């Protein structure tokens, strides 16, 4: 595929656009599956598989791609399966966790799983902050549950990501 020339002379890499779009679609499907299939028995807790995609992009140092895919997925997901309220919660959680992920991605003392744990926990913390604005201080009652579930789900998605990365690396060597 060849690069396309845009109006201001900005080149749009068609291959990159296609790749990111595919990842975004995959992300969207992950989000949809989680909203329909109950993976975690506790009410309202989701696994956050969609975060895998953003995490993978960050580990390949494609920060812009990670943000693009994440934001696009959040908007599409809210449009298709959610409500305006869910959009605010999703944005708060998704953006904050991605920003933190990008900040700590170079930390040598953390593995990808550790980064994912932090990512999941931060996601839940910021969603709780939004909830407090919405319903008041009583929402803080859920802080322990959200911290633990964020960490556990983060660890699980981090493990999945690590396995995926291993497969990608072994396939590249072939």
């Amino acid at each position, binding site marked *: 595929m060849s690069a396309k020339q845009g109006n201001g002379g900005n080149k749009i890499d068609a291959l990159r656009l296609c790749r990111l779009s595919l990842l975004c679609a995959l992300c969207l499907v992950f989000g949809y599956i989680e909203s329909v299939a109950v993976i975690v028995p506790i*009410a*309202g807790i989701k696994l956050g598989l969609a975060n895998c995609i953003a995490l993978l992009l960050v580990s390949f140092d494609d920060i812009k791609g990670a943000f693009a895919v994440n934001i696009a997925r959040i908007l599409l997901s809210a449009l298709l399966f959610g409500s305006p*309220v869910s959009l605010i919660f999703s944005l708060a959680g998704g953006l904050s966790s991605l920003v933190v992920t990008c900040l700590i991605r170079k*930390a040598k*003392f*953390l*593995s990808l*799983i*550790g980064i994912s*744990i*932090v990512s999941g*926990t931060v996601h839940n913390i910021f969603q709780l902050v939004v909830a407090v604005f919405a*319903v*008041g*201080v*009583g*929402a*803080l*009652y859920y*802080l*322990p549950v959200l*911290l*633990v579930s*964020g*960490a556990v789900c983060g*660890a699980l998605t981090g*493990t999945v990501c*690590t396995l995926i990365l291993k497969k990608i690396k072994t396939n590249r060597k072939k």
Partner: protein
Amino acid sequence: MLKKGDYIVLLCIAVISLSALVTVNVVAKNGRTVIIKQDGKTVYSESLSKDNVVELENNTVVIKDSFAYVEKASCKNQICVKHTPINKSGEIIICLPNKVTVEIK
């Protein structure tokens, strides 16, 4: 697969969530009033010790033995119904799809 830093992070999270759990249970006071809101507007505000059944358009709230809980709801996720009964000041049950909140003050 896990590095040293991961364990430190996990430990910090465990410590913070445990202290939050302890704090919430120590600070929590038994509530006195039940306030039920529909679309942000208060539709019921009575003493928690007064047994009652409040029938809203899409939810049914029961107040019994100084506890409040949602018995029935038309929402898809039923999180409000699955919620354990509340009685402590500050506790709240939220039905987001139907915009109903049950709060203890």
